[in-house]
């Protein structure tokens, strides 16, 4: 079966996020009350798997392969079966 997976890769807490800082400054300039802005990457893809659990495990392994353990953490945001 095919599953659609969504992975978020984000900077670890405490690691400086220059992008987030710059975006925050601009948003505040636009009068949005936004704080602690962090910018990360989202990856969407389709994987083959026998079950949702298997797809989730694959998503996990992919997150591990792609995130930089020195600075980043990943979250498996969603796993959905495709028709």
């Amino acid at each position, binding site marked *: 079966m095919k599953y659609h997976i969504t992975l978020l890769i984000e900077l670890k807490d405490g690691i400086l996020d220059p*992008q987030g800082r710059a975006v925050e400054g*601009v948003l505040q300039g636009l009068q949005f009350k936004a704080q602690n802005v962090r910018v990360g990457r989202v990856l969407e893809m389709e994987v083959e798997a026998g079950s949702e659990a298997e797809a989730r495990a694959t998503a996990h392994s992919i997150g591990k392969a792609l995130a930089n353990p020195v600075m980043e953490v990943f979250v498996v945001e969603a796993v959905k079966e495709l028709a």
Partner: protein
Amino acid sequence: MKVAVIQFPGSNCDQDTLWALRLVGLKAEPVWHTERSLEGFQAAILPGGFSYGDYLRAGALAKFSPVMEAVRRLASGGYPVVGICNGFQVLTEAGLLPGALLANTNLHFTCKDVYLRVERTDLPHTTGYRPHQVLKMPIAHGEGRYYADAETLERLEQNRQVVFRYAPAPEEAEEGYNPNGSLHDIAGIVNEQGNVLGLMPHPERAVEGVLGSEDGLPFFVSLKQALEGIA
């Protein structure tokens, strides 16, 4: 007859652009992005660099700078407005030019000389060129792949809004000359009115023999003549 060179936080070709403008005898002054007026200026250049670090997306944050309203007014008054490299990205982000500039297909910043064909010589920025003249000019960008939907591209071509196209070097093999994957080999475009122009290559880096090319000089000379016409 004075040109404003807009300085966004992170612009880094502002001084080079001022140098090139002054070299051809134009009066030019830097204008900090928080200014709300361009009173007294007859043209504006948005220079290259990394406005706001190019964070999020090149040009995405600079479009919110206070000065952009004044740039918009100058543009709608028919005065020449130019975006070079990052400035081109800002102009598309701000909607002053159609389309967008995406990450180069090679996914990395590329700095080298490329060749451009001049498609229009009737603009305030290009009267100094010969039709179809091939120019040598450096590029230096990571997000220069021109993109627009099919309809917009069609319209650009119909209206002859494509001003510069990547081209093969004279006497060289055909392929591989498009450095970033731009659609229709687009390196620079102009708005319908013909006064707002954006291009990815850096004419200000090609204004003296000692820098390797003088092909950018006519760009600034054209602008000077056009401005003399306005004054």
